[in-house]
């Protein structure tokens, strides 16, 4: 940002004298600071909204590939016919109209971190003062896997519908087999929640059908008590949980999962592939955590690789879980920090974020998992506050109702 812009910006934030001692001379703004957000999921949409909610002195452009956003949150309930996709599909009209965010539906081909520009598939190049990248995850290739035949349903939408249709068409006594990648992956309790919801559906609709969960991890990754009880008691005889089963290849035509523990043949096969940060993180050279995730400073979510670029949501590599609720939380920390940085101030030094997931266990019951994370000044990382972390003592009908109350506020806080 040029100095005139910056001064004008400080002025409009009301921080001018306070922050830097600039004299309060009003000069006509030539340019206003411009923040571009790539990706309109729980992370990107929240960041765009809060930048403008907190300041009208910045221009915000949100670039999202699709006009509609299909929420993964609650999407497992499409599989047991408790919801349809239209109930969890959102658009960006409110963000555009109420918050004055410029929304562009296009795919970002590349980012030039030196010149601070973003180029779109449609041919446009846009300049930014600060850039937020929130592209979610991409799936890593699995030998033989054709996701148009063997759905992952780990990005919601047509994939979810495809898996729901395959389950509906499954014969009685059929075999549902699903694979879970090694952590970290999007939504730690999500695969186990899916196993439960599918088991519930099969129990009621497909007598004799079974669920086999092939987990690359050594044990249930999240809500261990809850899911262990569900697998061994609630769905005893239906769910077969197999730890340490690492997927090596898939026969998509014959619906076979080849794993480190042998081959599993299915009537309906659901492969959740291993994941990595979205493509644009890699092509911009930001994937410096284990070669898969973007290293960031958790006070601002600014990349540790390229200045003026911030990464939030599933793509960031702070160790916080890859989930929508906490993606919204990170987005607020990032937006607050960017406004401070644009005003010449450091980010807030002690941010707190939180995570909450409600997991449906059947068509009428749900459990939950929660934690708060606080910035640790010694390790300079976000650390879980131990006493804050816990899971529901048992699934209940009340939790099932609260799941919708929670989701509705989260959806509204993100998209409206």
């Amino acid at each position: 940002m040029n100095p005139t812009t910056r001064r004008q910006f400080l002025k409009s934030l009301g921080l001018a004298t306070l922050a830097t001692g600039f004299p309060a001379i009003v000069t006509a703004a030539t340019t206003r600071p411009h923040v571009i957000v790539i990706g309109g999921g729980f992370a990107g949409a929240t960041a765009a909204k809060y930048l403008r909610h907190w300041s009208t002195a910045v221009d915000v452009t949100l670039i999202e590939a699709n006009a509609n956003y299909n929420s993964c949150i609650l999407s497992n309930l499409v599989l047991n016919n408790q919801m349809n996709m239209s109930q969890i599909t959102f658009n960006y009209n409110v963000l555009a109209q109420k918050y004055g965010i410029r929304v562009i539906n296009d795919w970002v081909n590349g980012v030039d971190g030196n010149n601070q520009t973003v180029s779109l598939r449609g041919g446009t190049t846009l300049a930014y003062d600060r850039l937020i990248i929130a592209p979610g995850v991409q799936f890593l290739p699995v030998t033989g896997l054709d996701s148009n035949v063997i759905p992952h349903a780990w990005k919601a939408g047509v994939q979810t519908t495809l898996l729901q249709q395959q389950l509906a068409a499954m014969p009685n006594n059929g075999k549902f087999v699903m694979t879970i990648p090694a952590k970290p992956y999007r939504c730690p309790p999500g695969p186990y929640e899916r196993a439960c919801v599918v088991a519930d559906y099969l129990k009621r609709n497909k007598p004799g059908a079974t669920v086999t969960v092939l987990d690359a991890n050594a044990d249930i990754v999240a809500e261990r008590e809850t899911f262990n009880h569900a697998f061994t008691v609630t769905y005893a005889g239906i769910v077969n949980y197999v730890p340490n089963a690492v997927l090596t290849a898939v026969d998509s035509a014959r619906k076979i999962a080849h794993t480190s523990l042998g081959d599993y043949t299915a009537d309906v096969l659901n492969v959740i592939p291993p994941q990595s940060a979205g493509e644009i993180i890699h092509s911009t050279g930001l994937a410096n955590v284990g070669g898969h995730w973007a290293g960031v400073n958790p006070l601002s979510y600014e990349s540790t690789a390229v200045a003026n670029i911030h990464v939030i949501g599933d793509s960031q590599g702070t160790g916080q879980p890859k989930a929508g609720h906490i993606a919204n939380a990170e987005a607020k920390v990032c937006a607050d920090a960017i406004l401070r940085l644009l005003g010449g101030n450091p980010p807030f030094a002690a941010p707190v974020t939180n995570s909450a997931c409600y997991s449906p266990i059947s068509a009428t019951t749900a459990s939950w998992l929660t934690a708060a994370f606080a910035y640790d000044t010694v390790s300079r990382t976000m650390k879980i506050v131990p006493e804050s972390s816990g899971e529901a003592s048992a699934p209940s009908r009340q939790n099932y109702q609260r799941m919708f109350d929670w989701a509705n506020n989260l959806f509204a806080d993100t998209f409206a």
Partner: protein
Amino acid sequence: MNIKIRLALASMLGGMLVACGGGGASTSSGENAVTAMTYSISGSVPGTLIEAFCSNGQIYSTQSEHNGTAQHPFTLNLPRNVKCRLVMTTNENDFANRVVTPIRLTKNGAGSIAFTSTGSAVSLGYIDLKTNRSAMRADANQDGVEDSALAVDISLSASDVGVDTAFADPMDVDRDGIIDTYEDDDGDRVPNRHDDDDDGDGIPDLADNDFDSDYDGTGDDEDSDDDNDGHYDGDSTQIGGGNSSVIVPDGGRLLAAQCFQCHGTEGRSVSRIEGLAGEAGEIASEMREMKYSTNLNDIMHHQAKGYTESEIDAIAAYFANKYGGVAGGGHDGDDD
């Protein structure tokens, strides 16, 4: 369960506007008069009970008039600028043949069951409601409630009606266009509104106490203050105008914003989760209580442990500054 009780309670307390909480009784049109504060919604239907469930806690209802034709006219007067949802019931007094049709108003492509009006009259034209179960459009769970709301286009007739495109409706938690009171929670083929035991647990709703939306230990059925704001439920308390003498410490805005994921942007909840706007005093005292409590079967009892005392004060100060009330005291911000 809670919604039915809450509405019934609101109508008892409300008094001023006519509310009809029962499943079949009708309101005489004289009481439901047009005033400067209301507008009329009219149309024609087969013999029908027309109800509007409104966000002021009231249920307004009327009956269509037999006029010798198959299309009975009706007029219902509703408060201006209050979000309402229309539900129409044919054979309302015949338990086995009752057909309930939620209405979805569409306007220039956008549609919602919730709408408001700033103006005078809305005409819906003739609405083709079904009058027996076998003719219903779709009723997979056989509870006599159409599975999806019937779209009625008002693009031409009602310029001052706004269909509510906000995507969360506290009266429709699962967002399927059927308000919660017309869901059939326990699958007994009787929608909650006509069911004396909504959750099928064998305890009649009036004695049942198993949903506690404000987590205060008193179930909603006994709790006349579900959101704990010190006012009876369904109140339309204005939130104070902010208390600028309360200084928000650095980071207060960001810390408070971490509440919004569950409690709504700026603490204005769009669901049954308690809103925080205007609750500055309660926030500090309740968070402290939860921070040190040993009840671990509640999300907020865990979350509160994630914040230090000074962070809790900063959050309370943020809400006091924005909406008024006392941040430090154990008092409800809207007592004043």
